[in-house]
């Protein structure tokens, strides 16, 4: 018997693909959101920050349950998608991506938010006085200075998505190659009394998590000296 069965490998591949897609999309969406949170004078800043942080404290099953309600045939999103002729989200990979993004949102947005905030206004003011427009400032000053935060965001988002279970259980189901991720597979093995296989997959998760954290500390440059 090989160390990992075909189904286990499939679950591993699916998990990595899910985490990769979710992390990439979250960085893309999280950056403007974190920037807005760090710079807006709007009174909506705190409520929005609280909503973003909600998945930190909300049980994943609760999040999954509400998504199931919302996305199901009777839910608002479900009906809208059906009316538009689009496929339903529950029990699909796409659904899992969207759910995971919500679930991992604070892990990506908060480090970015902190990083943008800690840069302060001065470097951006300097850049603008040197003739750099808003996008130019973002890419040549803010992003390089916030780089440690970006790395932290990516790693935390990735690792957190790899390990999710409750949300998948609620809205993903357990469809091989579609929604059967590593944590589901481990659960199945334990249920079936296959402790050896569960152990091997659990070790995989452990190694991934460790590698992610190691990568984080290696990719983070040392802090820049300030004036």
């Amino acid at each position, binding site marked *: 018997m090989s160390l990992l069965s075909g189904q286990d490998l499939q679950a591993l591949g699916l998990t990595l693909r899910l985490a990769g897609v979710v992390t990439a999309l979250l960085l893309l969406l999280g950056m403007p959101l974190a920037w807005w949170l760090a710079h807006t004078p709007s009174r909506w800043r705190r409520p929005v920050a609280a909503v973003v942080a909600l998945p930190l404290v909300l049980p994943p099953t609760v999040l999954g349950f509400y998504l199931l309600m919302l996305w199901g045939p009777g839910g608002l999103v479900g009906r809208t998608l059906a009316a538009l002729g689009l496929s339903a989200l529950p029990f699909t990979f796409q659904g899992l991506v969207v759910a995971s993004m919500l679930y991992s949102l604070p892990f990506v947005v908060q480090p970015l938010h902190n990083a943008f905030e800690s840069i302060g206004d001065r470097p951006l003011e*300097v*850049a603008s006085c040197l003739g*750099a427009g808003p996008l130019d400032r973002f890419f040549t000053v803010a992003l390089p200075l916030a780089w440690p935060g970006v790395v932290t965001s990516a790693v935390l988002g990735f690792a957190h998505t790899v390990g999710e279970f409750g949300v998948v259980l609620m809205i993903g189901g357990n469809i091989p190659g579609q929604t059967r991720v590593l944590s589901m597979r481990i659960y199945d093995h334990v249920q079936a009394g296959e402790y050896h296989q569960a152990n091997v997959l659990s070790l995989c998760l452990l190694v991934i998590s460790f590698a992610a954290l190691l990568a984080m500390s290696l990719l983070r440059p040392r802090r820049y*000296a300030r004036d």
Partner: protein
Amino acid sequence: MTEPAHGLDAKLALRRGALVLDVDMALPARGITALFGPSGAGKSTCLRAIAGLERDSAGRVSFGHEVWQDSAHRVFVPPHKRRLGYVFQEPSLFPHQSVVDNLDYGFRRAGRPAHLDREGMIDRFGLRALLDRRVGTLSGGERQRVSMVRALLSDPALLLFDEPLSALDASARADLLGCLERLHGALRAPMIYVSHNIDEVARLADHIVLLDGGHVVAQGSLQDTLTRVDLPPALGEALGSVIEGTVSAVDTHDQLVELAFPGGTLSLPHHDEKPGQSMRCRIAARDVVLARERQASTSALNQVACRVVGMADAGASSQCLVQLDASGTALLARITRRSWHALALAPGDEVWAQVKAVALGA
């Protein structure tokens, strides 16, 4: 390049905590204008508002023929379109870039203008050996030099310097002051220089705007403004005459130079001045002693013949300010009211002013 018909006109109002800034100033299109006043007078805030870094300021700012801000018509040109050269109190270099990348940040965005002598400027400010260094390895003085050249290389139409020397130690300060002084003559763009150090101002500036409590108290040429007698007490230490003259003789034995100016000559400590070079010195109002006759036995080196123009009483104070005219050069003396009466001085009287002149420059 055509000379703008007028320089900066700024009429701005802004609230920042306890400070209520409400200024109206017109600055010439050439030379260095000092924004001078005590701490908390609103100098930096005013400079930031001129640059467009204070979005919630209200009013009107125009530079040359361009309108930068007109709150009444919802006009607000963002800082990156104002062609500014801003130097902050802290050097604020980009820590993720090398020295040369910092220098070129604005230079590249200005399109590497051919009329800017990039290499010459790097040499003049002594940055040649630092180009490849990381910013974190530079000393405070080196950082501020990089920051200044970075601003100059962005091809600015207006230079805004916010106390660039105040965070530096004495030797770095003297060093940079020398750089700025040499820069003065070569400047194409006008500069606003914020400072609370009157010696710095007297050495560099051509014009001055006096700020106190968020308001413009006086503005005009350096000499005319600093010899006014109607300024608030907070600015009293700054009062005095700034005299520009030519070095007429150097006495290497006594280590003195003679400075010839329209009102006479002054002896000043010799540093490295050469005969014929122009030189500034400052005579603070508190460093002038008045006498009816020329004193024969006194340690004061410098005695200048003057005519009393007027006297301003500083209210409840024991002191008063006497305006003097030394053959066309205005001097100011702060003496006690008792002395004024004891000498029975009156406008039109001839007096001798014993002055302690401080050479500006080193």
